[in-house]
């Protein structure tokens, strides 16, 4: 059973937050930062690659400074278009700048239990369940590891997680929880077995990696080494900056963009220096820290602006963008969640970010909520509808129908109406009932979303993994655990 994937494509809404001149200024500022301030690369291998390429490397402080020409030359090697592959080729995702795809968010630590509504620590079974739901929903185009499988051993947790997703969905898997070489090696091997070999994996990468930077102007050592391994295998990799105004970035948005940009393009350039032509993507979830507590906010006008602006930068570098969206800071699916998730998603979509992360969370990407997942998917559908804009042509101007109805009357029985009525949006969770009905039932979006999630979880059967693969993965993971450092 092939599940269709809903994406935003052929947009009829355009958003421009940064002018071409603004982008140039940010890029130039970024190059100055890289040249004069430097970026930290706490990986011996990375430092050596930089040194070999002619960058100025301080091995003791592990800081790299590089001239603009070096960075720009490296970035020109990035492939501008490629696809994220799925176990089911009909679910492949071309990152061609004309699609916006939604993924599940990650990596949370708690789950609102779907059976009893209690908040509890996340487990491997949650990863399976969420993957299966994502597999059933047309709005979910790909998976992130949604929550940490905290009952799985630390040394191989990331491997347990991707195996769990592959067993429960045929869609593309992008992991943000593999950030060491040890696990990356095994993950790439697992992916190649699904794809049908190393060369096949290169052509059809069924796995991609996302690594977080360490703002300001830094990277994580294990992440760098894992990314290099992925780049070598042709597994698409992206570095995500989460630079936050006030704390890990300047208080001004442009400065925050520049800091994050320096992190991302140096990481990306590194991969190109080592493996020219490796598929890469820009990833970003910049924000502003709360003025009162310094806390991560998960939404606000600054987030929305970053969401709408970052793709202009990614387009400048001609690489796909993975943009933080949804991920409200609200503690329950309420007004705040509605605003934050709608505005952030609209902004990122209107700027045609290729990948949106992601559906399903409360409290700033920490608490998984099955209701929220369903409601986020509806927000995506609404935005998708909006992005289709208003088509003005002979057919849509409907002159024939208008003449037929004439003054007074209605359009309900017109053939034209029959032809086009299914283009009008039918929401699943918005309450459009008569007031009295709501008053007597007192139910609403939460309940319907929860009911849908429960139903899908009970009924949906994903395409199973190829025979024997699960067992082989178990063996590989066990071997990885045995050989892991303490």
């Amino acid at each position, binding site marked *: 059973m092939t599940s269709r994937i809903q994406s935003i494509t052929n947009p009829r809404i355009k958003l421009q937050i940064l002018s071409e001149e603004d982008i140039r200024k940010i890029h130039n500022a970024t190059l100055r930062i890289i040249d004069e301030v430097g970026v930290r690369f706490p990986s011996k291998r990375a430092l050596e690659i930089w040194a070999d390429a002619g960058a100025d490397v301080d091995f003791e402080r592990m800081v790299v400074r590089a001239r603009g020409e070096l960075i720009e030359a490296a970035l020109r090697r990035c492939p501008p278009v490629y696809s994220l592959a799925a176990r089911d080729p009909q679910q492949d995702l071309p990152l061609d700048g004309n699609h916006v795809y939604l993924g599940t968010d990650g990596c949370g630590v708690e789950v609102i239990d779907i059976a009893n509504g209690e908040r509890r*620590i996340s487990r491997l079974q949650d990863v399976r369940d969420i993957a299966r739901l994502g597999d059933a929903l047309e709005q979910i185009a790909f998976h992130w590891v949604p929550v*940490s499988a905290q009952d799985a051993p630390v040394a191989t947790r990331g491997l347990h997680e991707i195996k769990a997703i592959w067993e429960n969905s045929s869609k593309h898997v992008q992991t943000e929880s593999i950030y060491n070489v040890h696990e990356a090696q095994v993950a790439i091997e697992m992916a190649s077995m699904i794809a049908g070999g190393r060369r096949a994996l290169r052509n059809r990468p069924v796995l991609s990696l996302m690594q977080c930077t360490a703002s300001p102007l830094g990277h994580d050592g294990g992440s760098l080494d894992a990314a290099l391994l992925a780049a070598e295998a042709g597994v698409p990799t992206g570095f995500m900056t989460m630079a936050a105004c006030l704390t890990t970035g300047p208080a001004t948005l442009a400065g925050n963009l520049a800091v994050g940009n320096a992190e991302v393009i140096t990481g990306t350039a590194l991969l190109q220096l080592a493996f020219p032509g490796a598929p890469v993507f820009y990833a970003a979830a910049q924000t502003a820290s709360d*003025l*009162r*507590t*310094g806390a991560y906010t998960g939404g606000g006008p600054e987030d929305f602006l970053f969401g709408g602006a970052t793709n202009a930068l990614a387009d400048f570098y001609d690489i796909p963008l993975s943009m933080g969206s949804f991920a409200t800071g609200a503690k329950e699916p309420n007004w705040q969640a509605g605003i934050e998730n709608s505005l952030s998603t609209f902004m990122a979509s209107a700027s045609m970010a290729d990948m949106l992360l992601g559906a399903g969370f409360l409290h700033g990407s920490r608490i998984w909520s099955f209701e929220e997942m369903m409601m986020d998917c509806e927000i995506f559908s609404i935005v998708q509808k909006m992005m289709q804009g208003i088509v003005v042509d002979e057919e849509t101007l409907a002159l024939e129908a208008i003449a037929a109805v004439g003054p007074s009357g209605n359009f309900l029985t017109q053939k034209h109406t029959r032809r086009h009525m299914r283009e009008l949006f039918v929401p699943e969770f918005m309450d459009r009932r008569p007031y009295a009905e709501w008053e007597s039932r007192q139910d609403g979006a939460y309940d319907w979303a929860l009911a849908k999630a429960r139903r899908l979880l009970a009924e949906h059967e994903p395409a199973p993994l190829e025979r024997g693969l699960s067992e082989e993965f178990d063996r590989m993971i066990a071997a990885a655990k045995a050989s892991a450092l303490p």
Partner: protein
Amino acid sequence: MNQDILKRMAQSIIDGDSDAAVALAKESIDTNMDPLEAISGGFVAGVNTVGDAFGRGEAFLPELVMAGEAMKLAVATLDPELKKRGAQRQILGRVVIATVEGDIHEIGKSLVATMLSASGFEVHDLGVDAPGDKLIGKALEVNADLLAMSALLTTTMVRQREVIEELEKEGLRQRIKVMVGGAPVTRDWVTTIRADGYSEDAIGAVALAKKLMGGA
């Protein structure tokens, strides 16, 4: 005369002006002022003013942090003078704080360290990627009351449990209270690893530390 310098000391903290605070601290030593008076009558008064404004929503975190940094440096400048006079600054407790082994995320931890220091704790910040034995070693060395550990990843968060188990094994758990923090830390985790508490932000961390020390 005294009043004037005390007022200027407080103002340097309110302004978050570390240079001015250090200069005033030096001035007070040169003029033979009682360092304890300088701290409690001058600098701490400034911290309290900023704290009150913060509580009313009129001052924000950066102002609090800058005040804290200025306070830290002022106290450090007065330390030798305190020692010389055999005087003891009244501290709320001794804290060893770090981000756990394998984890390099530091801003939350640094924020907590600054706020604790500004609030009257003696803070020993061991930075990031700190192995358990280094943490415990330092705690013993400075006779710490509190051990505070931060982690941003669920995979490094487990180190918090390891350190607590080590403290229990060495019979130190009663002496040293443990607070944990970082995005993946939840109340359930605190219960599971038998820590003494956690906070989602620096303000709460200070309140928790005070509570653990038996204060309000």
